[in-house]
């Protein structure tokens, strides 16, 4: 069984060596793991470092954002006939050892999302997260503890679907809506995640409130669009 591990990375030269090292040394996974780092127009040595540590590297000539970056990895996996693709953050917050848990849930799901026990810390974020769960539940029927989690496993059907259509605006929750609208089975498993080593989250403060507003519309739209599109 071949698994392509898609690692979106924007200026992650410091986090990648340890992450790729861990991936190489995965013990309890009976699969051939191929890491591919998606260098999304980094300004540091992300691509070079990734290559030196044995990863394949897709270099985006301009910054596409997480959606376009992840989709390029999915396209690669789909074309080269990988059985599964995993998505894990390049900042090292997703322990590769937890991949086994996602794989364990892949039997009866096309898309597996890893969520963590501990929710967001600030009140604003917690409200936003709750609202997002409700929106997804009501509009799409997906039950998901953390729709924004980027720790994922894509089965063959998800690879085929997302090769042709993948959202670019708020990819994580939208992808769930699309998957659900197209009749894919979505599942989630509890995983442990690490605290961020440094830097800042891409979403913070009042931007988070506006984010939630936009995501609400985007998720509903993604679902309706995917439902309206003729299936093949």
């Amino acid at each position, binding site marked *: 069984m071949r698994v392509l591990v898609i690692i979106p990375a924007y200026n992650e030269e410091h986090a990648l060596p340890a992450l790729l090292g861990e991936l190489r040394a995965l013990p309890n996974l009976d699969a051939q793991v191929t890491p591919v780092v*998606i260098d999304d127009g980094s300004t540091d040595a992300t691509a070079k470092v990734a290559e030196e540590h044995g990863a394949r590297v*897709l*270099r*985006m*000539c*301009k910054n596409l954002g997480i959606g*376009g970056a992840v989709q*390029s990895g999915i396209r690669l996996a789909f*074309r080269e006939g990988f059985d599964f693709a995993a998505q894990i953050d390049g900042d090292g917050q997703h322990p590769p050892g937890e991949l086994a848990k996602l794989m364990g849930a892949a039997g009866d799901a096309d898309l597996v999302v890893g969520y963590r026990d501990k929710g967001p810390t600030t009140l604003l974020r917690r409200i936003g997260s709750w609202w997002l769960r409700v929106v997804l539940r009501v509009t799409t029927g997906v039950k998901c503890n953390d729709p924004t989690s980027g720790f994922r496993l894509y089965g063959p059907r998800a690879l085929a679907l997302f090769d042709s259509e993948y959202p670019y605006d708020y990819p994580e929750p939208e992808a769930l809506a699309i998957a659900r609208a197209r009749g894919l089975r979505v599942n989630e498993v509890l995983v442990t995640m690490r605290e961020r080593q440094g830097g800042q989250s891409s979403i913070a403060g009042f931007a988070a409130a506006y984010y939630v507003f936009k995501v609400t519309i985007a998720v509903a739209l993604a679902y309706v669009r995917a439902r309206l599109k003729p299936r093949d």
Partner: protein
Amino acid sequence: MQQVVENYWMFGAVCLVIALVLLRLLFRERITLQGSMSYLAFLVFLGLMAAFPNVTQKISMKLGFTLMSNFFFCAAIAALAVLHLRALVTLSKVHTRSIVLTQELAILQEKLERLERQQAQPLRAAQGN
């Protein structure tokens, strides 16, 4: 109530100025003719409305406007909305296309580099002998 027939040459003049700016952009190749055709058409149409206020007045009254200027505003806003939405459609298409092209380029580049490395390896081995 008596309708006042005003001259709307100012409105026509504004249309003319915009048309001139548009032409300038065209000549300098800042915009393509195909993309700006609809813009020119709308300007000509609005300009004609201003040039022949009597006809416009009749139409505007038929449509239930008591003030002709309101009809002008309405027509101009509608025209601009259509133009802007069309521009948005074009922009979105171009954006999506550029994402796909960037992805394809990256995938091909990686493949090419891998093939080149594979070819170079046996060569190096032969040179080493």
